[in-house]
C-alpha cells in the first residue's frame, strides 16, 4: 500500500508531465517512477525526493533545447510555405501586405502625433508638481487662465507647500537693435523665480540673478542669431518699443516645441510698473498675468485648493474661486480665456486613437477576409499536413505565424512610408514630429508589438477556420465551409460602416466650414487691409494720416481702432440710468473705434447716428448693439446715460454682428470712441482698398506708414485671412478626417478588389453556363456586384445613426451651425456606391466578357 510518503513529489511530477507532453506516452515519467521506488527503498524518502527533484530540474535545459530546435525547424517550413504562396499568388499577397502596410502607416503616424501631444510640458523637472492658477467668479467670469498680480508673492509667503511661484506676462513688442526693428510676438515678462518653477536650460548667464533687475532681458539662441549674428550679445542693450532699454543678461536655449508657451525674449517681471505708467500690481485685476507654482514634491493639489477660500478671504477676494491646473494637462484641456496659445483638446486625442484603431482593424479584416475566402487553395495543404500528423494546434500555429510574417513585412514597409510621409503629415497636423525608429526604444518595441497584434488578429479567424477542416473531407474534394461566408459578410459590412461614418464626418465638417465661409457676419471682410500699429505717437496725428492716405483714389476708407470687428473680446461692466441690481455685473464686449469704423465695415445702424466730427462731445458717447439694448431693456435708448461711470450718452444702435468666431454666441457689444481716454492705444489701422493693383496700393500704404512712423516695422494682414484663421483647428480637423476616410476607404477597396477577384474566379463555370444560356454582360456584372452592394447598404444603414450622432455632437461646439441634412447621407451613400462599383466592376466585367468556351472547356 502506498502512503503519501512513498510517492514522488507532486509538483516535480507535474513539471515533468508538462515537459514531456511532446514525447509519446510519457516514457521517462514511468522510468523515474520506477527508479524512485528503488532509491526510496535504499536511501529513504528524503534522499529519493531529492533525487527526483534533481532529475526533473536538470532535465529542463534538454527539454528547452529540443522545443526550440523543433520550433525553429517548423518555422523554417512555415516560412518556406509562405514564400511559395506569396510567389504563386502575387496579386493577393500584394493586396494583403499593402492593406496592412497602409493601415499601419496611418496608425504609426497617429501614434506619433499622440505621443507628441502627450509629451507637452513634460520636459520640466518634476513637471507633475507644477500648476497654473486659474480662477473664475461664479455667474460672472468663466474660467480664466490669468490671475491677480499680487498672487504669486502671497502664495509663497502664506503656504509652505508652495515652493516657488512665477508670474509671466506676454507682451507684443517692437524690438530695435542698431538698424533692425522687428515686431516680436513672443516677448514675455517673467519673475526671477521663473527658473525655480520651470526647466529651460541657459547657455550663458546666471539663472538666479538674470531676471532680478528691472530692464534685464534673456534672449534665445534663435534671437541671438537674428539680431546679433556672430556677436556676443551679453551686456548689450536692446531698445524696446522705441523707449525702454533692456540689458541682455543671458542666452537661453530655444524652448522646446512641445511647450504650451514659447518665448523668444524673457524680460524681468519687475519691469512691469516701469513700462506702464500709473500701473501697480493688485488684487483687483489680472491684466493677463499668469501665475505658475511649483508645489512640494508629490503634494496633493486638492489639499491646497481646499485652503484657498480662507486665503482669498484674507485678501478680500472671497468672490473668486481658484483652480490649480496641472501644467502637463494645460495643452490638452482646451483653450480658456487669456490662454497664451490656442491649446489642443484631449477629445482630438480620443478621436484620433479611435480612428487609428479602426483603420488598423479594417486592414486586419482585409487579411482575414481574403485568407478565409481563399481557403480553398490552402485546404489541400491543410489536409496533407493533417494526414502526415499535424494536429489542429500545429495548423493554427502555422497560419498564425504566417499572418505574423505578413504583418512584420507590412511593418517594414510602413516604416519607410512613415519616413516619407512625415513632412506632409506634419503640415497637416501643424506639428513638428520626428520619427527616429532606432533611437526610440519605446517606439521600436511598441511597433513590434503592434505588428504581432495585427498579425494575431488577422490570423486568428483564418487559422481557426482552416484548422477545423477534416482531412478526409478536404482530400476527397469536398468543400466544407458553411458559416464562413456569414462571418466574411460581417467583416465587409463593418469595413463599409466605418468608411461611411468617416465619409459622413468629412462631409459634415466641410458643410459647416462652407457655412462659416458664406454666413453673413454682419460686417464686410473683403478688401480690408489691417496694419498693426505699435507707435503710440500715431494717436496724436491719426486724423492727418487718414487724410493723407485718402489722397490715393484706390483707398476707399480708413479707420483707426483698438479692436478688430472679429476679435471684440474685452469684457467690461458699465453703469447706466435705471440699472437694476442684477444687471450690475453684466459684461459687455467692448471695442474702441473711430468715426469711420462703422461705415468702413458696413455695420448697420438701426437707430440714431454714427460718431461724428461735428459733435466734439462724441468722445464720451457710445453705440450699443441691439442685443445690448435688449439686455438693458430700453424702449428708446438714444440719449440715455451709459458709461463706465455713467458719463456717456447712447447715440446709436447697430445690428448685432459676429464679434467672435461662430463657436461663440453673439453677446452684447458696446462701441466706444477711441478719443475717450488718453491712455487707450490705437492698435489697428483698417484700410478698405479697391480690388485693382493691390501691390501698388500696399506699397503706397507702406510709404505713408513709414512717413508717420519711421522706426516701426510695417506688418499687415487682410481681414478675411484673419477671419479664416479663427477656424484653423476646424479646417485642420476637416483635412485630417478627409485623409483618414480616404485611407480607410482605400484599404477597404483593396480588400473588396481581392474578394471580387476571388468570387469571379470561383464562379467562372457558373458565369460560363449563364452566358451560354443567354445572359448578357450587364446581367452578369449585376449578378457579381449585387452581393457587394447589398453589404455596402447594410454598412450604410449601420453607419447613418453613428455618423449622425457623432457629427451632431461636433456641431454643438458651434453656436451657429448647419444641421446634418439628408443630403449628407445621400452623398455619402452615392460615394460609397460609386467606389464599390468601380472596385468590383473591373473584376466582374473581366469575368463577364470572358469567352464561355474557355471556362467550360474542361467539363
Amino acid at each position, binding site marked *: 500500500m502506498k502512503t503519501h510518503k512513498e510517492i514522488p513529489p507532486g509538483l516535480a511530477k507535474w513539471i515533468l508531465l508538462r*515537459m514531456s507532453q511532446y*514525447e509519446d*506516452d*510519457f*516514457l*521517462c*515519467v*514511468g*522510468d*523515474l*517512477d*520506477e*527508479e524512485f*521506488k528503488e532509491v526510496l527503498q535504499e536511501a529513504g524518502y528524503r534522499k529519493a525526493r531529492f533525487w527526483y527533484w*534533481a*532529475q526533473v530540474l*536538470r*532535465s*529542463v*535545459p*534538454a*527539454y528547452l*533545447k*529540443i522545443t526550440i530546435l523543433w520550433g525553429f525547424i517548423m518555422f523554417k517550413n512555415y516560412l518556406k510555405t509562405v514564400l511559395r504562396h506569396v510567389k504563386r499568388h502575387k496579386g493577393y499577397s500584394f493586396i494583403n501586405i499593402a492593406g496592412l502596410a497602409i493601415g499601419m502607416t496611418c496608425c504609426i503616424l497617429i501614434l506619433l502625433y499622440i505621443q507628441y501631444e502627450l509629451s507637452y510640458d513634460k520636459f520640466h523637472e518634476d513637471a507633475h508638481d507644477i500648476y497654473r492658477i486659474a480662477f473664475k467668479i461664479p455667474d460672472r467670469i468663466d474660467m480664466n487662465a490669468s490671475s491677480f498680480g499680487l498672487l504669486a508673492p502671497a502664495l509663497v509667503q502664506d503656504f509652505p507647500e508652495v515652493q516657488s511661484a512665477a508670474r509671466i506676462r506676454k507682451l507684443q513688442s517692437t524690438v530695435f537693435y542698431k538698424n533692425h526693428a522687428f515686431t516680436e510676438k513672443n516677448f514675455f515678462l517673467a519673475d526671477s523665480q521663473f527658473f525655480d518653477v520651470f526647466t529651460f536650460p541657459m547657455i550663458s548667464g546666471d539663472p538666479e540673478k538674470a531676471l532680478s533687475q528691472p530692464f534685464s532681458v534673456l534672449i534665445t539662441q534663435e534671437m541671438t542669431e537674428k539680431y546679433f549674428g556672430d556677436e556676443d550679445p551679453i551686456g548689450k542693450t536692446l531698445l524696446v518699443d522705441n523707449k525702454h532699454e533692456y540689458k541682455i543678461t543671458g542666452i537661453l536655449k530655444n524652448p522646446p516645441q512641445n511647450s504650451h508657451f514659447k518665448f523668444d525674449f524673457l524680460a524681468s517681471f519687475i519691469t512691469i510698473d516701469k513700462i506702464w505708467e500709473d500701473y501697480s500690481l493688485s488684487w483687483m485685476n489680472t491684466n493677463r498675468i499668469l501665475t505658475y507654482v511649483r508645489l512640494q514634491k508629490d503634494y496633493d493639489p486638492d489639499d491646497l485648493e481646499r485652503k484657498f477660500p480662507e486665503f482669498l478671504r484674507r485678501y478680500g477676494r472671497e468672490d473668486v474661486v481658484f483652480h490649480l491646473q496641472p501644467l502637463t494637462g494645460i495643452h490638452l484641456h482646451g483653450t480658456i480665456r487669456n490662454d497664451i496659445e490656442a491649446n489642443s483638446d484631449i477629445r482630438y486625442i480620443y478621436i484620433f486613437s479611435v480612428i487609428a484603431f479602426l483603420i488598423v482593424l479594417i486592414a486586419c479584416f482585409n487579411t482575414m477576409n481574403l485568407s478565409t475566402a481563399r481557403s480553398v487553395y490552402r485546404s489541400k495543404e491543410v489536409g496533407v499536413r493533417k494526414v502526415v500528423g499535424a494536429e489542429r494546434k500545429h495548423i493554427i500555429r502555422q497560419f498564425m505565424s504566417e499572418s505574423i510574417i505578413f504583418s512584420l513585412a507590412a511593418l517594414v514597409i510602413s516604416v519607410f512610408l512613415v519616413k516619407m510621409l512625415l513632412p506632409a503629415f506634419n503640415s497637416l497636423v501643424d506639428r513638428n514630429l520626428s520619427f527616429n525608429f532606432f533611437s526610440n526604444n519605446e517606439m521600436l518595441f511598441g511597433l513590434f508589438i503592434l505588428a504581432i497584434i495585427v498579425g494575431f488578429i488577422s490570423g486568428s479567424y483564418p487559422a481557426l477556420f482552416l484548422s477545423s477542416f477534416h482531412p478526409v473531407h478536404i482530400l476527397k474534394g469536398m468543400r466544407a465551409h458553411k458559416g464562413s461566408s456569414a462571418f466574411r459578410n460581417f467583416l465587409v459590412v463593418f469595413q463599409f460602416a466605418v468608411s461611411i461614418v468617416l465619409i459622413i464626418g468629412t462631409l459634415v465638417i466641410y458643410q459647416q466650414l462652407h457655412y462659416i465661409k458664406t454666413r453673413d457676419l454682419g460686417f464686410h471682410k473683403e478688401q480690408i487691409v489691417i496694419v498693426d500699429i505699435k507707435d503710440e505717437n500715431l494717436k496724436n496725428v491719426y486724423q492727418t494720416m487718414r487724410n493723407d492716405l485718402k489722397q490715393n483714389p484706390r483707398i476707399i476708407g480708413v479707420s483707426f481702432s483698438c479692436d478688430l470687428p472679429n476679435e471684440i473680446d474685452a469684457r467690461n461692466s458699465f453703469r447706466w440710468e435705471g440699472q437694476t441690481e442684477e444687471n450690475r455685473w453684466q459684461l459687455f464686449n467692448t471695442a474702441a473705434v473711430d468715426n469711420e469704423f462703422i461705415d468702413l465695415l458696413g455695420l448697420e445702424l438701426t437707430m440714431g447716428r454714427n460718431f461724428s466730427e461735428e459733435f466734439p462731445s462724441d468722445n464720451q458717447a457710445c453705440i450699443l448693439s441691439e442685443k445690448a439694448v435688449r439686455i438693458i431693456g430700453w424702449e428708446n435708448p438714444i440719449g440715455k446715460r451709459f458709461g463706465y461711470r455713467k458719463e456717456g450718452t447712447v447715440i446709436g444702435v447697430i445690428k448685432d454682428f459676429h464679434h467672435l468666431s461662430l463657436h461663440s454666441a453673439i453677446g452684447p457689444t458696446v462701441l466706444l470712441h477711441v478719443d475717450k481716454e488718453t491712455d487707450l492705444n490705437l492698435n489697428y489701422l483698417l484700410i478698405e482698398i479697391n480690388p485693382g493693383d493691390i501691390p501698388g496700393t500696399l506699397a503706397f500704404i507702406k510709404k505713408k506708414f513709414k512717413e508717420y512712423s519711421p522706426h516701426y516695422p510695417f506688418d499687415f494682414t487682410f481681414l478675411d485671412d484673419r477671419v479664416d484663421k479663427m477656424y484653423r483647428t476646424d479646417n485642420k480637423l476637416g483635412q485630417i478626417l478627409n485623409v483618414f476616410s480616404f485611407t480607410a476607404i482605400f484599404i477597404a477597396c483593396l480588400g473588396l478588389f481581392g474578394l471580387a477577384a476571388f468570387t469571379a474566379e470561383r464562379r467562372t463555370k457558373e458565369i460560363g453556363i449563364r452566358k451560354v444560356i443567354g445572359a448578357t454582360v450587364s446581367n452578369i456584372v449585376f449578378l457579381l456586384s449585387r452581393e457587394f452592394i447589398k453589404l455596402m447598404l447594410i454598412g450604410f444603414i449601420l453607419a447613418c445613426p453613428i455618423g449622425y450622432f457623432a457629427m451632431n455632437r461636433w456641431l454643438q461646439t458651434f453656436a451657429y451651425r448647419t444641421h446634418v441634412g439628408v443630403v449628407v447621407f445621400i452623398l455619402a451613400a452615392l460615394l460609397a456606391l460609386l467606389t464599390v462599383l468601380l472596385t468590383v466592376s473591373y473584376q466582374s466585367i473581366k469575368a463577364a466578357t470572358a469567352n464561355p468556351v474557355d471556362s467550360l472547356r474542361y467539363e
Partner: protein
Amino acid sequence: MKELTLAEEILLTAIWRLNDNAYGVTIRKQVAEVTKKNVIYGTLYNSLDQLLRKGYVTKTRGKPVAERGGRSKMFYTLTSSGMQALQNARELQRRIWDGIPEFSENKS
C-alpha cells in the same frame, strides 16, 4: 560513415550489453556506472531520440507495468547499422591504441 561520438558509443554499448532488457532505467544505470556520473533522464532521452533518427536503434513498446504507475517500458535494440557503427568504433579504438604499451601500475 561518420564516426560515433563518445556519448553515442557509450549509449550504444550500454544498449548492446543490456541486450533484451534495454529500457530507460537500465540504460541510465548502465551509462551512469560506466561514466561514474549522474545521468539525467532529459538528456538521456534526447540522445536516444538522436540515435533513433540516425537509425542506430529501434524501439518497441512493452506491456504496461504496475510499479511504473501503469506506464509501459520502451525497449531499445540495436539495428544492423548500429552494430556496424559499434564495430567500426571498436576497430578505430584498436587502431588508435595499437602498439601502445599498457600504462604501468605505479603511475597512477
